[in-house]
Each structure stands twice: as C-alpha cells, then as structure tokens.
C-alpha cells in the first residue's frame, strides 16, 4: 500500500496523508523547488487549474477557476463531471502570507472545513503541508463516508497511471 512513486525529475517525494485526531486531515509532500516557486504554482489561477484536477480522473474537468489570493479575497471553482451539471466550491481567504501560507474557508457545505496550506523552504526544496480542520467529528465523518463511497471508483484508474509513471 505504500508504493514509492517517482515524481518528475526522478525525485523520491512521497505524498503522505493522515487523519489526525477526530477532525483533521493532513497531507504533506516535498517539492524540488524554492517555496516562492511552489507558492506561485498554488496561488496563480492559471497555474493552479492545471494541476488541481488530475488529468487522469476520467470525465472530471474544471470549468471555471476564480481565485483572488489575498487576505479577505474570495475563490470559486466549478467542476463538471460531464453532462450539464456543475458543482461549485467556494470560500474566502482568511489569511495569505506570500511564499509562506494560505488559509481559506470551504463555504459550499453546511459545516465546512478550514484549510491551511504552508510552504516551508528547506534549502532550496519545499515542504508543503495541506491541513484541513473540520468543525466537528461528525463533519469529518460525513466527508469520510461520502468520499469513501464516491471516490475510489473514480480513482481506480489512477493506480495504473501512477504505477506507470517514470517509465
């Protein structure tokens, strides 16, 4: 279950995901670039939308992506799963410190999480931490149950894709 995946450039950078306590999801990953570069790829909409929805997830696309990444700014992402239905995700940036961290709300649901992403410069490489805190244990359980049912089928093809990267 812990297959090593070669990142671009052959770097052995593993994505780690864990549930912490009752209400938190934490994802970490190291990138071979300074924090300022990784931050730009996250905070500029034209770059962000190229990677946030994996190309490999069948039939899902981002139809619009508005991000005003500054403290007090708003964002709105609209996804389409084919057909005419779109699903919107939106919220506000609570705190933005360029090259260091972005904190935003997830307002599309009843009990949205607050998400923090931090960029930690480590001598030319960057440790990225994506940290989602749910308002209650129940809110996280709901997310857990919902996506455990919904996502695996969508992502099965990713397995093949990821195990075949790096030739």
């Amino acid at each position: 279950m812990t297959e090593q995946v070669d990142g671009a450039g052959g770097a052995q950078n593993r994505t780690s995901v864990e549930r912490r306590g009752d209400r938190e999801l934490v994802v970490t990953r190291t990138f071979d670039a300074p924090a300022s570069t990784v931050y730009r790829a996250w905070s500029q909409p034209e770059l962000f939308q190229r990677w946030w929805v994996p190309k490999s997830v069948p039939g899902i696309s981002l139809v619009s992506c508005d991000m005003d990444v500054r403290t007090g700014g708003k964002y709105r992402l609209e996804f389409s799963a084919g057909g005419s239905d779109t699903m919107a995700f939106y919220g506000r940036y609570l705190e933005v410190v360029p090259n260091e961290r972005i904190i935003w709300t997830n307002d599309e649901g009843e009990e949205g999480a607050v998400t923090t992403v931090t960029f930690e410069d480590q001598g030319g490489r960057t440790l990225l931490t994506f940290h989602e805190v749910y308002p209650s244990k129940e809110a996280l359980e709901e997310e857990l149950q919902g996506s455990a049912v919904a996502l695996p089928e969508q992502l099965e093809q990713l397995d093949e894709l990821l195990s075949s990267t790096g030739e």
Partner: protein
Amino acid sequence: MVQYLHPPLDLSFAALSDATRRGIIDQLGRGDASITSLADKFQMTLTGMKKHVQVLERAGLVVTQKVGRVRTCKLGKRGLKAEAEWIETHRKLFEARFETLDEIINEMKQEGSGD
C-alpha cells in the same frame, strides 16, 4: 473536497446522510450485531431499526443474514474499511495532483522563474 455525484451513488449518499445510519456503520465496524441489539443500542423500536438497516442494505453498505429467528447485520463490501479507503483515496488524489504540480514546477524552473 471534490466529490463526484453519480446516480448509482445517490443511494449511498442518501443512506449515509442520516446520523443514526452512520452510527450503525460505525457500530458494525466494531463487530457484527443483530437487529435487536442495534435497536437496543440506539434506543429505537425494532421496526425503526429494520428500516434503517434496509436503507443501508440497499446501498450495499450492510448485509444481513437470518439464522433461525435472529437477523445478523454486518458491513457490506462498501462499508468495510471506510477510513482506510478514505485515506487511500485522498492519497491517490493528492499524489495525482502533485505529479502534475511537479511538472509545472519543472517548467517554471526551466523558464528561470525559480529564484
């Protein structure tokens, strides 16, 4: 978080939209149980519990088996290891995202924009 809704999944979402039903899944994650003992645990009538279990059964989250006069419930394939699956699902999703992000970062570095 991105979730994709498809008609076959609606049953599951409906099944899990109720706190008691999520509690039942949770309970069955700790071990199989009869309808009677579940009704006791959640302080409801046998009829009420049967209805909840039926909804979960239709969504494939629970399977039941009647032996003699006792109907035992256990997690169906889908209800199993929800947590492990959830972690794994997120890992795959982020891994895929970050693969592409690596490519973009490499482009940026080659453009000499990595300072």
